[in-house]
């Protein structure tokens, strides 16, 4: 008993200790290290050691048009993708929130995009979008519409990438909202029906407000993930044509592992990190508010 009592009374920190050490070593330390690198002038391929140059990387990178465009594009991509996903996802959830034949099959289908390997998804959509052999233009043309240049042109590339993200992640919102709807009691909707509400009023005035916390959580989760989108963009366009589909994540990658300009890369990574951190803080704040 006695040799157990120490572990027993300290289990609250002994148990998580290995995980904490691991996260500190692989996450906290690298972030600090990146912060330091961002203050140095360092190109990995040059063979010289990092030299401290203060904030001048920040001055340089933050004013560079390529960076500013990527920053803007990241927001455009994120918000347009998540806005469409939110609307479609909630609509699909409301549609599927009833008993019908084949419901479980549809729910299984909804899961598939979520677990599909993003790189492979990107490749399949590349084949879709191919201007000469792709199904996408075939469909457009059979509907009597003009074909699109999809990812091969700067004007359409971001929109085409948004479509891929929408295809892959809308089901996430649908599934979360469906689970939220399932956890609601039927009674308020029935009470509203007796109170004189029609179906649309029930959805708008009762059901939607009641699942709103769930919708908001799902949307914020999606926002954070969409900000970090890398795989499909890298696989489908590599940031091109030109720089037309470069997001922060993409130029962060290129500066680090293609140009090896570590100091400047670190600045980009810091910016991305801070944006995501801000969103994450927002999500916890919101979580606390909803709990109350």
């Amino acid at each position, binding site marked *: 008993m006695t040799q157990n009592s120490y572990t027993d009374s300290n289990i609250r920190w002994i148990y998580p200790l290995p995980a904490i050490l691991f996260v500190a070593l692989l996450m906290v330390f690298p972030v600090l290290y990146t912060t330091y690198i961002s203050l140095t002038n360092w190109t990995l391929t040059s063979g010289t050691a990092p030299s401290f140059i203060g904030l001048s990387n920040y001055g340089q990178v933050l004013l560079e048009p390529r960076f500013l465009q990527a920053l803007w594009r990241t927001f455009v991509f994120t918000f347009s993708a998540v806005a469409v996903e939110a609307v479609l996802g909630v609509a699909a959830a409301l549609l599927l929130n009833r008993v019908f034949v084949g419901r479980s099959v549809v729910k299984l289908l909804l899961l598939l995009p979520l677990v599909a390997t993003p790189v492979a998804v990107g490749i399949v959509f590349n084949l879709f979008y191919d201007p000469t052999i792709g199904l996408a233009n075939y469909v457009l043309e059979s509907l009597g519409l003009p074909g699109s240049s999809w990812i091969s042109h700067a004007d359409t590339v971001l929109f085409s990438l948004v479509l891929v993200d929408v295809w892959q992640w809308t089901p996430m919102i649908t599934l979360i909202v469906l689970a939220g709807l399932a956890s609601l*009691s039927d*009674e*308020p909707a*029935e*009470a*509203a*029906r*007796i*109170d*004189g*509400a*029609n179906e649309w*009023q029930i959805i708008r*005035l*009762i059901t939607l*407000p*009641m699942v*709103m916390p769930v919708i908001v959580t799902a949307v914020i989760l999606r926002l954070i993930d969409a900000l970090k989108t890398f795989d499909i963009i890298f696989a489908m366009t590599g940031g091109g044509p030109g720089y037309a589909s470069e997001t922060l994540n993409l130029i962060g990658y290129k500066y680090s592992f293609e140009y090896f300009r570590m100091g400047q890369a670190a600045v980009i990574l810091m910016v991305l990190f801070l944006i995501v951190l801000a969103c994450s803080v927002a999500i916890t704040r919101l979580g606390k508010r909803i709990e109350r």
Partner: protein
Amino acid sequence: MASLQIVDVRKAYGPTRVIHGVDIAIDDGEFVILVGPSGCGKSTLLRMIAGLESITGGEIRIGPRVVNDVPPKDRDIAMVFQNYALYPHMTVAENMAFSMKLRKAPKPEIEKRVSEAAEILGLTKLLDRYPRQLSGGQRQRVAMGRAIVRDPQVFLFDEPLSNLDAKLRVQMRTEIKQLHQRLKTTTVYVTHDQIEAMTMADKIVVMHDGVVEQIGAPLELYDRPANLFVAGFIGSPSMNFLKGHLQGGRFVSDSGIALPVANAPAASDGKPIIYGIRPEHFILDDTNGLSAEVSVVEPTGSETQVFAKFAGSDVVGVFRERVNAKPGQQIRVIPDPNLGHLFDEQTGKRI
């Protein structure tokens, strides 16, 4: 306000039939309570009246109008749910105003009605709170407030008090009764608490397995249960039953004990009979009483419940007197000859 007619109403979920032809006539302003064991179809019937469940067969009329195919919102009813069904994202005032807003009532009118209802229910100070900031009893009151602001034709209640603690339940019982006396709105109230049924109802409907067993005033059901089911269901502790037959104006149990019965029908002599006697209708009688072997004595203070073996069966008696017998001892009791009930063993019907 309106009368409510339920005529041969049936309900089936696919092949499962849960209500088999129910007839109930409810007068304008009456307070009717549906009781019955769990799963007998009370909620289903109530929800059919509300329009939340479709009607498989028969007819429901509110006032002169057949409402079978009328959607809930056009039936002019209000319903209080077991879990209150308050809208969690609206304040108390918004909850109560919701139905009138949907009907596009003018704002001053809504405000007037809400504050009147709040006044009646003692909610005036809580109007700006959200449901999660209320106690169970307060939520219950908001649910009722939501029903009364509309001044509907019919009130429906589905076990509205079952989530409250015992003391609050008694208090709310009185309040609902008073409210009814004040508003005189036709009310259908579901419960499986028979004290609620006995104390609140103008008329009780006893249901069992989707059929109506008996309809009547509370004391009528108590004094003259129409069949074995009602006899056993109404009253607590339940009525005691002994098997046997009638013989020369007396009941003879299968164990051979004879009990006096006032005006027993001579025609039933020899037929298998079930004799019922309520626990409180046993009389302690040391001279003429028959012996009963005590197994458990439970004094509650105001009365004493005695479980005993009597005429070959386990019975329970309730006495105003204190009973000092110990388990295993004999006491002498006699059922009140005027208050015994006789039922046909085959059909279960009262004789």
